[in-house]
Structures are given as C-alpha cells and as structure tokens.
C-alpha cells in the first residue's frame, strides 16, 4: 500500500505556497499534519501530482489572544493547542482531547482539520459552535469566512483550490459561560458517530445566549438554531432543554453509514444535545453562584 508517485515541494512562505497551488491547481494537495491526507495517499485514494508541504512555511504556528479571541495559526498542532489553551477555553480543550490519539494530535494541525472538514470531526463543530472565523489567503488576497459559511459539504469547504487556511479565530466564551460536549464513538479516539457541543450564558436565571453545534450528523457540522431559539430568554428547565433538543433534532438531516443509521444519529443527537446543554447550563449556573 504505497502512494502513487508525486512531486514534493516545501515552500518557506505563504506566497510561495500559493504560487505552487496556483500553478498546479487541482493537481496539487496541501500537506499539513497529514493525519488524514497520508492515509488517503497510502491507499491511493488521493493521487496529487504535487504535494505542497506547508510545514516549513514561517509564521503559521502561533497561538495568540487578541480582542477576546484565540488566534490559532494554521500549523499549530492539536497537541500544542491542548497545552496552550491553559484554561481559557475548556470546551475547546475537551474537544481536542477527543481527537484521535496523542500521536495523531502531535502531528495533526488545527488548520488541517478545519480545511479537511470532516463532518464528524470535533474542531469544525467547535469552531461553528463558538462563531469562529477562518482566515484564508489566496493570490487575490485575504478572506475571513465565518465557520457557518465555510463548511459546505462532507470534506467540502468554501476554500478555493489556490487558497490556504492561514489562521482560525476562536472567540473566547464570555466569563461565566457554561459548556458541554458529548459524543458517541465506537471506540475511544474514533470519529464520533454523533456529537454535540454547547455554550450557554445565563443572566438572572434565564438563558442569555445558547449556542449548540452537532457533528457526525449530516454533511457538515450544524448549528442547532431551533434549540438555541427555544432556549434564549427562557428559564432553562429540564423540560425546556428537552424541547429544545427535540426541536433541533427534527431539523437535522443525518446520514447513514456502516456504523449507524440516520435514525440513530437523529435520536442520539437529541440525547447528546440534551446532555451538552444540561452540562453547559449547570456549569454556567455553578459559576454564577
């Protein structure tokens, strides 16, 4: 199981990388951490003529905090971000720990996971959950794309073939925001069959804002707008949380595969939304006390 032959370039600057992408178009593939791409190369399912290895591109591996958001360079390894978060974003920290295994996260990059856009992956869903933004660069300049617009289908994004993800921006939840994250996977470290993440802020016992994202349940990570609308401005009771999850689950368009039916995904998405919301609300009220 050896890859088909390819040429290899390892540009040192973003512009140089973009030149390669422009020149080779659909024939080129960007190699970041390679944890999804390398298996596809080894299986010969991906057969690029040119591999553009961006690992030596300078300036893409920083984690900084500006204007209440974590700015994460595209080459930041998932394992590195786990440590760099340092308590600032517990939801993201919890999500990172669910990605594969240590050896995968040591190499896997944050930007790579976003650009790969696996609908069952944690990072795209968490970025959607926190209203994050993807910063891209192409020869025509920079774009800043909201997560909601970025993920357009399974393994499909708004990224043009000659564009690179250079950074992801993760707005830090306001102090007092509670979080919840639940997923079901066949084994520890596997892609989720289905998962749900929630961020909830309360004020005066009412939900000030609720953000819920579901993953592994359809073509892209999905914000559960119906759940959010059901909760906002109301006192979060068990019954209301259940209503919210049910409303959102009915709007999902889950897929079926080897490991679970669409019906399973819809049903369990509802269960996991309930759990994630309950955790988020209890954490929010815990910190409010």
């Amino acid at each position: 199981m050896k890859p088909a032959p390819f040429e290899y370039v390892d540009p040192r600057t973003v512009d140089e990388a973009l030149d390669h992408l422009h020149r080779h178009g659909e024939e080129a593939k960007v190699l970041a951490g390679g944890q999804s791409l390398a298996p596809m190369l080894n299986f010969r399912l991906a057969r690029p003529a040119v591999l553009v290895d961006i690992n030596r591109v300078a300036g893409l591996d920083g984690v900084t905090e500006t204007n209440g958001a974590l700015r994460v360079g595209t080459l930041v390894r998932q394992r590195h971000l786990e440590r760099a978060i340092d308590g600032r974003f517990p939801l993201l920290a919890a999500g990172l720990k669910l990605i594969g295994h240590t050896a995968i996260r040591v190499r896997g990059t944050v930007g790579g996971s976003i650009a790969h856009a696996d609908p069952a992956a944690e990072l795209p869903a968490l970025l959607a959950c926190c209203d994050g933004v993807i910063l891209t660069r192409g020869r025509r300049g920079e774009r800043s794309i909201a997560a909601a617009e970025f993920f357009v289908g399974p393994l499909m994004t708004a990224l043009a073939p000659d564009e690179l993800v250079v950074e992801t921006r993760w707005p830090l939840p306001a102090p007092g925001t509670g979080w919840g994250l639940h997923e079901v996977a066949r084994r520890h470290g596997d892609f989720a069959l289905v998962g749900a993440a929630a961020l909830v802020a309360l004020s005066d016992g009412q939900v000030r804002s609720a953000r819920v994202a579901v993953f592994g349940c359809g073509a892209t990570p999905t914000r559960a707008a119906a759940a959010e609308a059901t909760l906002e401005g109301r006192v979060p009771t068990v019954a209301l949380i259940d209503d919210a999850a049910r409303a959102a689950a009915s709007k999902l368009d889950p897929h079926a595969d080897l490991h679970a039916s669409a019906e399973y995904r819809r049903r369990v998405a509802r269960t996991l939304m309930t759990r994630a919301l309950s955790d988020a609300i209890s954490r929010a009220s815990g910190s409010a006390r």
Partner: protein
Amino acid sequence: MTPRLIRLTVNGRAYTRSVEPRTTLVDFLRDDLDLTGTHVGCEHGVCGACTVLLDGQPVRSCLLFAIQLDGAVVTTVEGLADGERLHPIQEAFREHHGLQCGFCTPGLLLTAKAFLEEHPAPSDGEIREAIAGNLCRCTGYHFIVDAIRAAAGGVRR
C-alpha cells in the same frame, strides 16, 4: 518522483540519504537505515505499530514522508536500551509479561516513554488513554498497563 537529499538524526546517529518523495518514514527507517524494529501494521495511522518519537514526541511513522524530515531528530525502539542494559520501561514490560508476539511492542514502548515523561505518576485510566492509539492483538492490554504502571514506580489505583 524527484529524489532529494535529507540529513537527519536517528537514535543519536546522523544519516544523510537520498529519498523519493513517496517513501514514508517507516519504510525509510526499515529499508534505507535497516532499523527494522519499527513495524508496519496498517499504513493508515490506526494501529500504532510504527510509532516513533519525533523530537521526543510520539508520531505515526507511516503518516510522515521521509523527505519532510530533513533536520529531524528521531528515536526508534533501537535507541531505547543503553547498550546491554534495557530501558526501565523495557524491563517492566518483560517483568510483567507486557508483550506476547512483540509486534506492537516497539510502538507501545515509545508511546509509554513519552507519556511517562509527562505523567510520572499516572492513574490506570490515564495509562489506558495514553496507549489507546496502539493496538495490541495478543495481550488484552492488562499486563501492558501493569508494566507501564510499574515503570512509573506506581501501584494499581
């Protein structure tokens, strides 16, 4: 296609070799450097048999291309023992019957080494999570957990 010259350090020894782009790190170690202790189990990053340390951290060597590793520092299982003296983790695996066929063992030893350096007194749950990316088909993991716990000087908790 077009080969390139790379220089890297493996187990403290410097190597310069010409590599084809499509040669994975594990094939490079095994075929070009004759370090056959690193094993090929799946070539798609699931089994963990090919785990080596890259700059001290565990990685799947089937998911890296050797051409990427100019300047890298790699540790393989052959670099663990100090001459005739086994590394304490190797000793613990032997003492606790933490291996049977031995095929997954090199990957597990390196995963455990990196893990214990960061978690000197792990719980059993932490040990299990740390090695969950290394499939073993022989042991059921029970004695591997015992071995890693013992290597940390710990008792079952």
